């Protein structure tokens, strides 16, 4: 499955682009996370890395579709 991933903050710097396309083995958020960290090892250095699906924080077990809006959420620091 090929997914388009929006990236922000420190994660974007580590992945070298605002939006990246990645091919994953598997179908859920956990599978995506594994592929991401394998492809961009620097992501493992983040204090946390959440994944949002369709603008909502997602659990690792959530199933993904190619049409989902997926975003990487490194530790937030607003305010």
């Amino acid at each position, binding site marked *: 499955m090929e997914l388009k991933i*929006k990236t*922000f*903050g*420190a994660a974007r*710097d580590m992945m070298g682009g605002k939006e990246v396309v990645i091919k994953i083995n598997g179908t859920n958020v956990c599978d995506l996370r594994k592929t991401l960290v394998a492809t961009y090892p620097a992501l493992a*250095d*983040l*204090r946390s890395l959440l994944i*949002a699906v369709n*603008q*909502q*924080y997602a659990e690792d077990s959530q199933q993904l579709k190619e049409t989902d809006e997926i*975003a990487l*959420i*490194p*530790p*937030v*620091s*607003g*305010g």
Partner: protein
Amino acid sequence: MIEITSNKIDREKVLGAVAHLEGGAICTFIGTVRSKTADKKVLRLEYECYEPMAIQEIQKIIDFAKVKWPVLAVAVSHRVGTLQLGDEAVVLAVSTPHRKESFEACQFMIDTLKQTVPIWKKEIFEGGEEWVSAHP
């Protein structure tokens, strides 16, 4: 009112948005860019935001506060882009009937905003830059 803006925040607009005849108390929090972080001298900050999700997450915080306290109105404006020293990054105002609950609701909302809303700031200081809180 929830606003993400790349312009200077209009405090009067935020305060005006929470005026309420049954309210006796308005508590406001304003977050500004400090000149010092630990020992580093900050030159400027750069904020970025996943805007549609940020607005939804802020709305969730407001909805939760309204369950917990007798909140009459809330307004939040968060600035993004490049901020200089002294600039205001966030202005959050809440009106309630009485004073104690206005402080509790305001503090809860800004504390939670900083934990859950997808906004990121990068500090640019002399000799480097760093995404705040990114690393352990």
